[in-house]
């Protein structure tokens, strides 16, 4: 039986890049407030100022709400998917996700503490979440480090589960302390994840992180390929397994923590998207990681579009949409492919 690749790698790239354009447009053009598509386009190229010199409401909706939100979706989707693909490659396990090192729990704890202590200011919440996420990862990594300074992926996974549970307990306790006040809604909404808080300040921080991080991960994709031969196998191919592993884990954790800091813990993007792309173009990480990044961005933008339109004017947390789309698809893949993923 010949292994079937439905499409060549190049055509997958082209299709994904082409899809990005209408995705971005749709994300900006569609929303609870109807704005004609032509107006949207003209706003995007900077002509949104009305005759008296003040910006129109539609222009403000596009430039201050929808565009940052779509771009945040792009960055977060990109970061989560590429981190997920990297983690799956590192752990040689298709069930790994960007949250495997306890980042989600750590970030939730950080965010909930910020809310509990009433720290106001645009960047406090992301900062708290970011620190929490990285702290969890750091503890997990330390725990998994052996005397010989090597880290075993199995210990990493187990430590990730344990540390995750610990941080979840702290978060639950914080929620318990918040009960009775409005803060509890904030915490719960934060943990469900969403792109609703998007603004340009966030984008200024996140864009360079995601861009640089993705480039580093793509540069290490060949190490990831070599590591699929096992760590000793990679060593014999001229790769320093410990160094590569540390860099990739670090960058993936950084990307994930940053994404979570601004968008909360959005599930399934980092698990499902690398999977789907692996089925389409195969496990070669040199192609898998870049396509996964683009596909993650597209997926999250559409999921967010659904989140804010299906129950409009109310908004569903996007994590619910990704789970609704992702979980059944994941089960389908499991059923179809079984252990062969």
């Amino acid at each position, binding site marked *: 039986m010949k292994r079937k690749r439905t499409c060549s790698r190049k055509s997958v790239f082209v299709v994904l890049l082409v899809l990005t354009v209408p995705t971005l447009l749709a994300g900006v053009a569609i929303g609870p407030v109807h704005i004609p598509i032509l107006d949207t386009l003209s706003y995007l190229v900077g002509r949104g100022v009305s005759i008296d010199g003040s910006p129109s409401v539609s222009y403000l909706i596009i430039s201050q709400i929808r565009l940052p939100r779509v771009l945040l979706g792009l960055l977060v989707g990109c970061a989560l998917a590429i981190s997920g693909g990297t983690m799956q490659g590192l752990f040689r396990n298709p069930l790994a996700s960007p949250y495997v090192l306890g980042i989600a729990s750590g970030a939730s704890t950080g965010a909930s503490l910020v809310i509990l202590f009433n720290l106001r200011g645009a960047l406090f919440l992301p900062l708290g979440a970011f620190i929490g996420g990285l702290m969890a990862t750091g503890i997990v990594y330390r725990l998994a480090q052996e005397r010989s300074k090597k880290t075993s992926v199995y210990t990493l996974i187990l430590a990730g589960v344990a540390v995750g549970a610990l941080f979840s307990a702290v978060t639950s306790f914080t929620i318990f302390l918040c009960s009775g006040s409005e803060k509890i809604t904030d915490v719960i909404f934060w943990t469900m994840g969403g792109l609703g808080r998007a603004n340009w300040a966030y984008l200024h921080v996140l864009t360079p992180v995601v861009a640089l991080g993705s480039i580093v991960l793509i540069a290490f994709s060949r190490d990831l390929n070599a590591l699929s031969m*096992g760590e000793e196998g990679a060593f014999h191919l001229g790769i320093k397994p410990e160094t590569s592993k540390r860099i990739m884990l670090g960058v993936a954790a950084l990307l994930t923590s940053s994404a979570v800091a601004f968008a909360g813990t959005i599930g399934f993007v980092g698990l499902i998207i690398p999977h789907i792309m692996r089925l389409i173009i195969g496990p*070669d990480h040199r192609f898998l990681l870049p396509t996964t990044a683009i596909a993650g961005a597209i997926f999250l933008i559409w999921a967010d579009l659904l989140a804010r339109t299906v129950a409009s004017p109310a908004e569903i947390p996007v994590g619910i949409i990704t789970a609704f789309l992702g979980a059944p698809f994941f089960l389908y893949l499991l059923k179809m492919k079984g252990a062969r993923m």
Partner: protein
Amino acid sequence: MEITTDGLKFSYNDSPLLNGIDLTVPKGEILAIVGPNGSGKTTLLKNISGILSPEVGSVYLDMTRLPELSMTELARYLAVVEQEREIGFDFTVREIVALGRLPHRGRFARETSVDKQWITEAMELTNVAPFAERSIRELSGGEKQRVFLAMTLAQNPRVLLLDEPTTYLDINHQLQIMEIICQQAAAGLTVLMAIHDLNLAAQYANRVAILHQGRLLAIGRPADVLTEVNINQAFQVDVAVGKNPVTNSIYINTVPTQLTRPTALGKLHIICGGGSGAGVLHALVDRFSLSVGVVSPLDSDFQVAQYLGAKLVTEAPFAPISTRAYEANLVTMRSSDGVVICETPFGPGNLLNLRAALELESKTSIYVLNPEVIEERDYTGGQATKLIRQLVSSGAVPVNGVRELRRRLVSRYQNTDCSVNRRSQSSQERALKAPGR
């Protein structure tokens, strides 16, 4: 490229695994490391491949110490085939083989036409090209191991280390792998392999080293190293080393432990030849002290008898039985407690074995296997048939098959106190040492 180690020592959790290993593998040589489980074979390979660093001593590739090579240089010079690898994802065969080019390429460089050529050649050499686009995880163990070998060949190393590359493979795939390795060694690749199968080692390696308790017990040509004494010391088993008639390399047979049981019920002489005696010999060897004659050394029964430690009366190949052999045979028969005549084809050459039986005084201790079908294997124009019939009519016991033979012999001699029951120790020793020298 030459591999040299000087006084390698390595211990794990304070228990020494390697205790001063000095060896040199010249360019183009295949050195096989054998030794019991836990003797340190894998540890030695890992010290040489750079995965582990020796506590004392160094490893050299040509004249360069291993730590002085960069990771990339090391990967260009030295490749490793492990016993078994589990690949996490559905990589295609070609993708795996292409990994071998990683050390020859920069981080961002794409596959060049040179890379492609190496990959294609490696896949053709190992005969994995037909399933280049299949997933590695769909392949059988033998196919997988060939793919990993192809990957290391695409790596174009000067030195190849193999850690029991054939352990989980069937005999056909074992040979395929070894043949490829031999070809590469002939082209200048230096090969060091740990291997369990002593016979594969003997057949394919230029030299063999026995690793025992972290030291080299012996190193040298297979025939000099794989001796009964060395193997017994390293593995605590009794073996008989013979020569493989097909490949002319030595081969090692284990000797069943029951052979060393001292009490035999009695001495039996077996008249056989042409393979007719093998089954009988095996069926009786655990309870009786056996002798065989007259047979020629080219006869398969001769070899079986030899391995089973039977006393042999022999004659030169293709020669009729001489008076000397006839007399010797008769003496052996007379000193036996019983004689078994197997379903041997009789011709002019061995007819004298039947005449000798006829000379025996007590015909009732002669057992004849299936005498009623003697005509079918009589190539003497009826003389053999006549002799067999004569034997049976004068009291020889006809038996129907080997199982019945064994049953009757055991029940007969269990109750008699035979005078000379002691199995001759010297015949056994001779058999263990005779061949391959």
